[in-house]
């Protein structure tokens, strides 16, 4: 009986690791083909990401936006919408936070900082909300609208950073580097470790992960979002206003991506500039799905994926591996980890089936507990995306 509980759990933990190892094995072949020592390369990767204060703080710094974007992705995907607009929402959020911070630069930090973060979240929510309303009211597919909105956000940023928000110093110097003025120091997030970039945004991300867990599993709103995602027709039958909750999923998704942008600006760059994102919208999706679309699973997942990215950069620097090779390995890791999910699910089903067979021979209380556990397992299943 005990076997039925811990074996699938162990498998669940081990299989993704095996998948990562397989991807790394193929990467090792490539490294060997390039005349590099794979062991040295991977040692650099791991120690670069986790083996020093510099590496560890860089990993945590990287995990912060991944986690925040990923939280939004969790909500969107749980609500049954494929939000690939994280990139645009993050950019708009960062722009909103920066604009507000610069406009109210004389305000004290204790009020301006929260306002900036809220402005970022609101701007991101607005951007996600466009896709949400388009889907809810006009049946515009969210993959299409979010892809297009990403491009639109990017051009909007180009325009704002060249014109209305351009740093006056740049304008006067005639150099026109597309970036804003630096934000006033009172809105800079606290740096946690001297001589590193790690900032207090990580605590915000962690706290919000817990909050989103409660939102999704302990509130009516969360229950409805998940119901709409799992089975829209059943939700409709149960009297849930499905279009509103679809729109809400995208609005919340956008809010978290926008907040990620605001946190990056306040914690890291201290101004809005080109190249402040560069792919968090997509890596956030990857992190969220590594974390099984669970806000708490997202915490280790972002840490791991952030470490992978940071370590890979270190590998490029230390042994001059082309960055393209690292992209290949990342792609393989993503594909293999999602593919390994099948065996986890199969194993779970097999064990719960065995458990069901044995149920008649067991005391009633135990089997009830077992059923509860199965319910927990079942809730890990991905929602049926549209």
């Amino acid at each position, binding site marked *: 009986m005990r076997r039925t509980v811990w074996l699938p759990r162990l498998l669940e933990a081990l299989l993704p690791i095996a998948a990562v190892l397989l991807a790394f094995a193929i990467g090792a072949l490539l490294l060997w083909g390039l005349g590099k020592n794979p062991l040295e390369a991977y040692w650099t990767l791991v120690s670069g990401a986790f083996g020093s204060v510099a590496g560890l703080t860089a990993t945590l710094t990287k995990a912060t936006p991944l986690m925040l974007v990923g939280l939004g992705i969790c909500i969107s995907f749980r609500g049954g919408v494929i939000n690939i607009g994280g990139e645009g929402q993050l950019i708009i959020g960062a722009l909103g936070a920066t604009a507000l911070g610069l406009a109210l630069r004389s305000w004290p930090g204790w009020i301006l900082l929260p306002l900036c973060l809220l402005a970022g979240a609101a701007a991101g929510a607005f951007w996600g909300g466009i896709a949400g309303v388009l889907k809810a009211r006009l049946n515009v597919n969210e993959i299409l609208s979010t*892809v297009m909105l990403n491009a639109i956000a990017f051009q909007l940023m180009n*325009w704002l950073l060249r014109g209305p928000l351009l740093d006056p110093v740049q304008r006067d110097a005639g150099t026109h580097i597309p970036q804003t003025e630096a934000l006033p120091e009172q809105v800079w997030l606290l740096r946690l470790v001297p001589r590193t970039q790690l900032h207090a945004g990580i605590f915000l991300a962690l706290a919000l992960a817990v909050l989103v867990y409660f939102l999704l599993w302990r509130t009516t709103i969360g229950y409805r979002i998940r119901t709409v995602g799992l089975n829209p027709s059943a939700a409709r039958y149960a009297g849930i206003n499905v279009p509103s909750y679809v729109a809400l999923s995208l609005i919340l998704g956008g809010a978290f991506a926008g907040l990620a942008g605001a946190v990056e600006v306040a914690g890291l760059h201290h101004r809005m500039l080109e190249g402040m994102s560069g792919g968090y919208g997509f890596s956030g999706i*990857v992190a969220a799905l590594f974390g099984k679309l669970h806000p708490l699973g997202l915490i280790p997942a972002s840490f791991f994926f952030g470490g992978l990215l940071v370590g890979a950069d270190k590998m490029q620097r230390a042994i001059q591996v082309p960055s393209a090779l690292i992209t290949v390995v990342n792609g393989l890791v993503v*594909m293999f980890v*999602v593919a390994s999910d099948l065996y986890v699910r199969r194993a779970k089903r097999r064990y719960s089936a065995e458990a069901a067979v044995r149920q008649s021979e067991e005391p009633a209380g135990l089997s009830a507990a077992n059923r509860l556990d199965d319910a927990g397992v079942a809730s890990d299943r991905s929602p049926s*995306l549209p």
Partner: protein
Amino acid sequence: MNELFTLTAIVGILTSGIRLATPYLFASLGEMFAQRSGVVNLGTEGIMLMGAFSGYYTVLHTGNPWLGLGVALLTGALMGLLMAVISVTMQAEQGISGIGLSLFGLGLSSLLMKVLVGTPTGVTGFRPQRIPLLSDIPIVGEVFFDYSILTYLAFLLVPVTWFVLTRTTLGLKIRAVGQNPEAADSLGVSVTRVRYTTVILGGAMAGVAGASLSISILNIFQENMTNGMGYIAVALVYFGSWRPLGIMAGALLFSLVNALQLWIQVLGLPISPDFAVMLPYVLTIVVLALTARQIRQPAALTKPYERGQ
């Protein structure tokens, strides 16, 4: 504004738009098959890059564009096979496996370029081929009959894919599998085989889409040269509501507006270039918002199928 309505500008916009639509048509029509059978392949971007590189590399060494096209098609099919193994057999979540495949293709094409070629140089790929007589017709000839063979092929694929999808047994099977896999299965259609076919076919066509850039339109390969076109191609399938004609309309709309915005800039009309560049994206959304009410998507889209589940 009047300069936009000169003959030169209008002909220019039409020719540019038709040329720009070429890669989108290949990739989107291929993706349409995959989605009709229930698989969203977000890896199109990576497949296009691999197709673009392999085609370019072949032409660089053999000088034979047809061989390059064949290699690109095969490479795309192989990438499609990889996607099929992961998303059909392993039943992985399709969105994320596609993003993984995109990363993989982006990385591998850049790596191969770096190791095998180094600094990019131009190749002589498919040349524009004026169709005799027809291309001599004033205006019409210039607008419709002066492209490389791949552009004609892309537009030819619209009726061909329509025919395959609606008038053949394979098409019927594809639609059945995408609508109701259980029912299709019970009627003896192998869901797995059909989905493998469509995803591999879609991959092959995405490979050709990449090659249409590297050995026909641009005649060079550059790291990450598709710059997001693969994602646009996937979006256009939704725009076209899974029908070849609709996809062609979407590809043309997007490309023509893109051509229009280039002309707006060339003519120096008082619109900031940033907003001009935005135009095709905005208009694609707006047009879909005005027309999308009635669309029904394949019921089993993104849902992996397992027997007896």
